[in-house]
C-alpha cells in the first residue's frame, strides 16, 4: 500500500450514506432494497454472512472426513483388487517414482482443502476480534482462498478420467470409490462457504481499530 502522493483515507459507501451493489459496483441511497441496474439484493453489510460461512464450512468439513477414510479408487488388475484412499494413492505414486504427480495430488487434495478450512475459519474469527491482523494480510488470504479453492476438484477429475478410460474387460478396470462423492461435496461446500463471506467486514474491523487508536 505504499503509493506515495495518494492519501490513504478512503470513504466507504456506508459512511457516505450509500449502499453498494457488489455485483455491478453501482451506488444507491442507503435503504434501497434491490439494485435497479442488475437486480441484486442490496445490503450494506451482510449480517448473516458469518452464520452462512460457518454452516457451509461445517458441512464441508464433515464431508472431508469420509472423503479421506473411504477408498477413492478401486483398481482391478487380472485377479487382484486394490483399493486406495486419497493419501494412499499419492503414497503409491511416490513409490513408483512419480514424485511430481504425487506432490500435485497431495497439494490439491490435502494441503489446499485443509489450508482452506483453516483460512476461512481464521477470517471468520478475525473479523470479529478486532486488531489482531492487518487488513492487507486478511485480504490476501481471502483472495487466495477464493482463487485456489476450485483447484481441489482436480482429484475428482482424475478419478473421472481414469474410471472412464481404464475399462479393459478382464485385464484392468478402475472404478470410483465412495470417497470421490464426499470429496466433491466437500470442495463444493467450502467454495460456497468462501463465497458467503462478505469481504467488506475485513476493513470494518480495521477502521474501528483506527478510530480506537485516534481516541488514544
Amino acid at each position, binding site marked *: 500500500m505504499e503509493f506515495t502522493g495518494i492519501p490513504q483515507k478512503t470513504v466507504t459507501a456506508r459512511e457516505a450514506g450509500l449502499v453498494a451493489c457488489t455485483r455491478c459496483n453501482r451506488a444507491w441511497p442507503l435503504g434501497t432494497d434491490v439494485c435497479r441496474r442488475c437486480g441484486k439484493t442490496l445490503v450494506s453489510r451482510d449480517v448473516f454472512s458469518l452464520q452462512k460461512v460457518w454452516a457451509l464450512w461445517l458441512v464441508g468439513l464433515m464431508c472431508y472426513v469420509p472423503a479421506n477414510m473411504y477408498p477413492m479408487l478401486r483398481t482391478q488388475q487380472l485377479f487382484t483388487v486394490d483399493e486406495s484412499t486419497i493419501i494412499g494413492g499419492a503414497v503409491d505414486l511416490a513409490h513408483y517414482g512419480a514424485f511430481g504427480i504425487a506432490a500435485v495430488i497431495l497439494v490439491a487434495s490435502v494441503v489446499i482443502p485443509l489450508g482452506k478450512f483453516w483460512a476461512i475459519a481464521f477470517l471468520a474469527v478475525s473479523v470479529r476480534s478486532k486488531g489482531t491482523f492487518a487488513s492487507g494480510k486478511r485480504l490476501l488470504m481471502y483472495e487466495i482462498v477464493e482463487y485456489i479453492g476450485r483447484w481441489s476438484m*482436480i482429484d475428482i477429475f482424475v478419478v473421472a478420467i481414469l474410471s472412464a478410460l481404464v475399462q479393459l474387460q478382464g485385464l484392468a478396470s478402475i472404478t470410483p470409490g465412495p470417497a470421490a462423492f464426499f470429496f466433491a461435496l466437500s470442495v463444493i461446500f467450502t467454495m460456497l462457504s468462501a463465497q458467503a463471506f462478505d469481504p467488506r467486514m475485513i476493513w470494518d474491523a480495521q477502521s474501528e481499530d483506527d478510530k480506537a487508536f485516534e481516541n488514544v
Partner: protein
Amino acid sequence: MGVLHPPRYRYMWRMSDAMNLTKTPLEELIVCPICDATYQLQRPKAGERAVCVRCHKVLIAPRYKAGMQIIAIAIASVVLVIAASVFPFLEISVAGRTNAVSILDAALSFTRGPMLVLALLTAGFIIFVPLLRMLLTLYVLIPVVLDRPAAKHAVWAFRISEAMRPWSMAEIFALGCAVALVKVADLATVSFGPAFWMFGVLVVLVIAQDGFMCKWSVWNSLEYPKKR
C-alpha cells in the same frame, strides 16, 4: 501499445470527504465490491485499468475492441466445446485391447447410485457450465457491440453468466488429464484423440475470454445501451 511497456495503471480519484460524495449524482460513483471504498467515476482509456486504492481490486479494465474479440472467442469456444465433448479424447491399449473415451464419457463415468449426482456435477463443471456461459455472453454482447438496444432479459442472462464463473472448471480438468495420464502410463499405452487437442485450445480461449471481459463496462452498457 508497445509490447515492452508495462501495463499502465490509473488509480481512481477519490473524493476528499463524505460530503462531496453525497453531492455527486449516483451514476457518477463506483464502489469497490471488496472493500466498500467509494470513488467518483473516472473512465480509464482502453488498455488502462482503474484500480481500488485500498484493496487493489481492478474495477474497470476496458480494452480496445474487447467486445468483438470476446464474441469471436465465444463463437470459437462453443464450436470447440461441442466438438471436444463428442470426439474421442483419449485412447488406451493393453495387450491388443483398446478403449477410447470422449470427455462426455469421462464426465459420466460415475453412474452407480449416488455417484450419478457426481456424474452430473462433473459433466456440468467441464462441459455445460462453460458452454452455457459462452452462449449467454454471446446473447448479451452481440446487441451491445452492434449498438443495438440490449437484448430482452440481457441483465438476467449476464447475471447467470457471472454467477457461474467460479463453477466453470475446464482448466482444472486439463490439469487433471495430465495427472491421470501419468497414473495410467505404467499400466497401458495412451494415445490422444482429436478432442484432446481441441480441449487444449479451448482452455486457452476460456482463460483469454475471462481476461478480456470488463464486467463493469458490460453492466454500464446494459444500463445505457447507446451511450457506452
